Structures are given as structure tokens and as C-alpha cells.
């Protein structure tokens, strides 16, 4: 097991290196640091000195790949590629273009993101599975038909409308919860409840349909027929056998996204002004802060790779037929 995990970890290295090279290419080769400096300093009347000063301040003044002025080892380490990209592997994010420490920012903003993403995921999962089970339990009836119709309708509405509509209805008209913001302690709940409910509702369409398809496929299998033939009631077969077996794909689907929860949801956080990583990223995009965007891209892919690894491990834990080689 440990050997397997180790080998998988080795396998992720080239993957992350690929991500790194790709982002490096995007950020430094397509547009040179000179371009970035001009962009940051404003378009007109930028002197050569100002550009150079900006580059020195932010550490972009080194050559891209190979520093011919230095000797031996330093030829490689004293370059933009090493300083800005390779150091990400050690989770040294450096400072943002506006001079803040990215690593500290991420650590601080991770928790609000998680506070909103984790409950929405779990609650959403429960609601989706329940809705799907209901539809399967009453299959070939009007309940199922209208359930599917409702799912398609919910699916067809952009998430933005749920947010705007929800904010308008519950915060502005009914004044039940604050429109946006974030608090700590007991206050948190007040701020979190609306975003969580909205994300559950907006995910219900596609989620419910997906789980329904999963259960329907499972329901037609032989072991379910056997269970029924044994005299188990429909609810018993459904909850004990079908749900149990459908758990494998459900669980693996969830585990992949678990690490990514730290990243938060871009739209939700910016609409409800929650100080999480999602709004951090959006702010960086709007301020055109390349250092932050680059770090977030890398962090996102690291988390995704971790998610994949966790999924594989989970497979073995839930499904005894799968063996890791």
C-alpha cells in the first residue's frame, strides 16, 4: 500500500512539472516581464528605468531559463524559471505583485472557503441522493416524471440567477439574512446559510439526474431482483442493497473534489463577499496580479492530483474487488 502511494506520488511529479511549464510559458514567454511591467505601471510615459526598477523589485530581472553570467549551479538557480516556478513545489509562493505574502494570505483565506464549500457539498449530496432515491422509488409514476422535468428546468437556469434571485428575495425583500459579508463565531451561520442553500438548490438539477441514472442502472441488476424475490420490500432493497452498491461511484465522485474545496467557489464567494480563496483569485484576476493567479493555478492542480490519489485509495477501501498493483 505504502509502496503504491509512493509510486503514485512519483508519477504526479511529471504531471505537476507539466502544469508548471505550461503556466510558465503562458506567463513569461508569451508575455515577457517587460510587458507585465508596462501593464502594471500604466500604458503611457513609462521610462526604461521605471520598468527595470519594477522588475528588480518583483524579482523578474533575471534571465528566463539560463543565467550565463553566473557559474555552475547558479546558472540554473538564478533564473526566473527557477525562482518563480520551481519554488512552487516547495509551496514557496513568494510575494504578490502588490507586495503581500501569498502563502500567508492563502493560509488565512482557506478556512472561510472551506466553511462554505464543505457544508454545501455534504448537504447537496444528501439532498441529491434523497431526491434521486425518491424518484427511483416511485419510478414509472407522475412523481418521477415531474421530478425529472424539475431537474431539467433547474439545470437550465444559470447559477447566477439563483444567487441574484436569492439575495434579492431573502435579503432584500424578506430581510431574513444579511446580503453579503462574513463574520466569525456564532455570526458565521447567519452569513453562510444563504450561500449554502443556493448552492444546494442550483446543484440539485444535474446532481439529482446523475444519481437517478446511477440508481436506475443499479436497480435493473440481478441481485436486486434476487433481493425482491426473497421478499424484501421495495424500500428495503433500495436503501440496503441499491444504495450500498451505488455508494462506490458516489464516493469516488466526492473524494475527487474534496481537496479542491479549499479553493472555494469563485462566484459564490465574490457575490457574498466571503474572504475565501475564490474571491482572492477573482480579485487577483481583476487587479491583474499574475503572481497570485500563477500560485492559485499551481495550488489547484496539486489539490486535484491529491484528489485523484485519494480516489484510488478509496476504491480499495470500499470495493474489496479492486486491488492496487
Amino acid at each position, binding site marked *: 500500500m505504502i509502496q503504491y502511494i509512493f509510486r503514485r506520488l512519483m508519477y504526479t511529479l*511529471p*504531471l*505537476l512539472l*507539466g*502544469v508548471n511549464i*505550461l*503556466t510558465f510559458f*503562458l*506567463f513569461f514567454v*508569451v*508575455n515577457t516581464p517587460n*510587458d*507585465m511591467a*508596462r*501593464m502594471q505601471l500604466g*500604458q503611457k510615459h513609462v521610462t526604461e528605468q521605471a520598468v527595470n526598477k519594477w522588475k528588480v523589485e518583483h524579482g523578474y530581472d533575471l534571465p528566463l531559463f539560463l543565467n550565463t553570467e553566473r557559474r555552475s549551479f547558479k546558472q540554473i538557480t538564478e533564473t526566473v524559471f527557477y525562482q518563480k516556478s520551481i519554488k512552487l513545489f516547495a509551496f514557496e509562493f513568494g510575494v504578490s505583485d502588490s507586495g503581500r505574502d501569498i502563502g500567508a494570505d492563502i493560509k488565512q483565506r482557506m478556512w472561510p472557503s472551506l466553511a462554505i464549500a464543505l457544508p454545501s457539498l455534504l448537504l447537496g449530496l444528501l439532498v441529491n441522493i434523497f431526491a434521486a432515491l425518491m424518484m427511483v422509488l416511485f419510478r414509472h409514476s407522475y412523481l418521477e416524471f415531474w421530478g425529472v422535468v424539475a431537474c*431539467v*428546468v433547474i*439545470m*437550465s*437556469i*444559470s*447559477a*447566477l*440567477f439563483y444567487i*441574484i434571485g436569492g*439575495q*434579492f428575495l431573502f435579503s*432584500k425583500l424578506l430581510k431574513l439574512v444579511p446580503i453579503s459579508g462574513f463574520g466569525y463565531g456564532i455570526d458565521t451561520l447567519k452569513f453562510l446559510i444563504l450561500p449554502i442553500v443556493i448552492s444546494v438548490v442550483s446543484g440539485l438539477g444535474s446532481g439529482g439526474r446523475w444519481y437517478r441514472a446511477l440508481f436506475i442502472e443499479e436497480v435493473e441488476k440481478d441481485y436486486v431482483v434476487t433481493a425482491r424475490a426473497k421478499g424484501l420490500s421495495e424500500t428495503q432493497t433500495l436503501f440496503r442493497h441499491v444504495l450500498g452498491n451505488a455508494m462506490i461511484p458516489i464516493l469516488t465522485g466526492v473524494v475527487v473534489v474534496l481537496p*479542491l474545496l479549499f*479553493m472555494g467557489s*469563485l*462566484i459564490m464567494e*465574490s457575490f457574498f463577499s466571503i474572504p475565501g480563496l475564490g474571491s482572492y*483569485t*477573482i480579485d487577483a*484576476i*481583476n487587479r*491583474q496580479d*499574475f503572481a497570485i*493567479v*500563477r500560485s*492559485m*493555478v499551481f495550488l*489547484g*492542480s496539486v489539490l*486535484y*492530483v491529491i484528489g*485523484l490519489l485519494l480516489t484510488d485509495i478509496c476504491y480499495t477501501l470500499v470495493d474489496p474487488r479492486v486491488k492496487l498493483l
Partner: protein
Amino acid sequence: MILLISSVSIGVLLRNHDGLKRPLKKIAANKSAMLSMIILLFFLAVGLLDSIHFRAEGQRSSGVISVLDYCAKPLWQHTEKTYSAPFSAYLYSKEYITQDGGDKVWAFPRLQFGGSHLTNPESEKTSDLLSLLMTGLSKGLMLCMAGVGLRGLFVGKKSEQSARRYCPGFVCITISILIVGVAGLMELSMYYHIFGTDKVGEDVFYQTIKSIRTGLVIGSLTTFIMLPLAVIFGILAGFYRGWVDDLIQYIYTTLNSIPSVLLIAASILMVQVYMANHPESFTNLESRADLRLLFLCLILGVTSWTGLCRMLRAETLKLREMGYVQAAKVLGVKPFGILLQHILPNVMHIILIAVVLDFSALVLAEAVLSYINIGVDPSTYSWGNMINGARLEMAREPVVWWPLIAAFVFMFILVLTANLFADAVRDAFDPRRSQYGQ
């Protein structure tokens, strides 16, 4: 133009599929699928009208307008000062108005165009609206009658039966309702702002119609960028295995592991930097907006091909062990020939299903991306931009709700019909589903 090409190629694609009559018939037998197809076609027609540009003198700054602009001239020529509610004859905000006597009054001024033909809006508006609606509806009805008559002429009595089979009653009814409704809206929009006006006084109805093209372009162009990548890589990886497979798998896992929103954001940022540093190549706003739209499609395509590629690879892996592929190999057919003749037709259904399923997702994605400012250019008409603007408008008092509702209605219809149609296509073409006769 792009749309035209794409729709033609869709047509060619479907023509090649003529051998698969059964799934097509299945779609035709599905009422909701046919209904949504008609509405989709209607959207497509509007988008096409909007894509055919020609030069007209003295119309706009750039002098280039589309056929749709030409048809809907009053819509974009009738601009007001600022917000106005749907069907309103008055402006949203109060102003000092100089009356005949020369004294100033603090009141809502009349609109320049919306309902300007009325002398006393309070009492006349309802009846005027109704009469306009009736004229519009009756015009549409007449058009329908003419259409039915024409159909009768062309089809003749003998083939009436077959015509009924391919064009059943409810299809005709839907088309008629659509035509009548559009005629009614057109008649109304000549004299009123159906969805009101926005901050700078532009007709929201016009913006909404123009946004159709943006949505369609993103949906279709992205697909056409994604398709070749996914198909070529997926089939090659599955067929050749070995290092080709490893390389392709490596590429798509790498791309996949970057959160797509961030990749899009990063790329759009880069385009912005590029445009800011090369202002000489982008002299006017329109070429800037066009480039950004094009690039957005490109990036969306690059980020979204991985899913389809993986599916195709898996399917090809299965297919290459099939008897007929092995036989072709033994008979000395070149690998390229096998790919083209034996593998590609057999993965066609996966491609088709993926394309229709992705379409609605892309339209939705556009709105979200535009909201985060990494979507289409702010000067492009798009539902995302309208929603983005509506965020501030909702905080006004009284609430400016019409741009949001307008974008919502049109986007909802487009995405819903696309979803329904996609479901029907999937049910019809997926062999696993059709086995059970569901």
C-alpha cells in the same frame, strides 16, 4: 459567417448519418425533442441573420451592420436617455421639464420613442397595446395561413400522407405559434420598448436578441475547436497505444489538473496584456472584441476537449480488439484506412452526444465567465454582460429588473431547449439505452 460554416458542416455531418435512420426517427417521434429543435432552429436563424454583415452608409460609426440590425432598425435607433421600464412611456428618473408656459416642473419626462405616439399615455396605453398586439398577431396569423397554403400547393394531395408523417400537426402548430408570437413582438417593439431600456437608454430587447449570436458562437465555435483535438488524439491514443498513448494521456491529465476557470483566466489575462502592448494592431473596439471572443472560444475548446478525448480513447481501445478491425488488419488495410473507415464511424455516436450535451453547458459557462470579467469583451452584447450589469441595478430603488429578466428568459429558453434536445439525441443514439427500448 462562422456560424454559417458551422451549421453547414453540421448538416454534412447529419447527412453522413443517413444510414442511421432509426435514431433519427426516434428523435422525430419524440415530441419535446421536436419542439425544442424548432425553437433551437429559430434561435439559430436569428443568430445567422445577425452574422451576415454588410456595409451600409451612414448607419453606424463603423458602417457595418448585420441583416438583423437592418430588420430591427427602430430598435437600435430609438435610444432614450437612461433607464425606462418595459412598455413605459416615461423615463425612469425625474427631471426638470420646461412646460409650455416656461415654468419648470420636477416630473418624469416622456420617452422620445417608447409610446411617443400617444397623447395621454395613462388612459390610452392599454388599449393601444392591445390593438398593436392584435395587429401583430393577425399579421403573423396571415403569414401562417400563407405558409400552410403554400405547403398544400407544393405537397399536393398524393404525398399528403408522407408529409404528415414527417411534419405532424403539432410541429406545424408550434411553428405557427412561434411565427404569430414573433410577429406580435415585432409589432409591439416598433412603438414600445418591450423590455425597457438600460442605463444609456439602449433597448434591452435589442440587446437580448443580439446576445443570441454571442451565445451560439461560443457554443458552436468552441465545439469545432474542441472536436478535432478530442477526436484525433482520442482515437490515436486508443489505436496505437504505446508511447503515443502515454504522451496523449500525459497531455490531457496535465490540462485536466489545472482548474479550468483559472486556466481561462490566465489566458484571457495574457490576451489583455498582449492587446495592451500592441495597441497598433487593434485600432477599433470591434476588432478587439472579436479577437477576445475568438480567443475565449479557443481557450474554452482547449480546456474542454479532455473529457471527450478520454471517452473516445476508451471506446477505441475496445473497438480495436473487435473482429472486423482485426480482419481489416490481417487483410492489409493501412492503419489510417482502418481509423477512418472502421473506428471513426463507430465512435460517431459518442461524438454527437458529447457535442449536444456540451452546447448548453457552454452557453451557461459564458455567462459565468463574463461575470468574472474573463468572458467576452464588455462591449460585446451577451447575456453574461447583461447579468453582470444587473447586479448593481438590483440595488436601485425602484428596482431595475428588466435587463435581468430579459436575459433570464432568453437564456433559459435556449438552454432548456438545448438540454431537452440533447437528452433526446442521447436516448436515440446511445446503443446502451436503446436496447431497453426506453
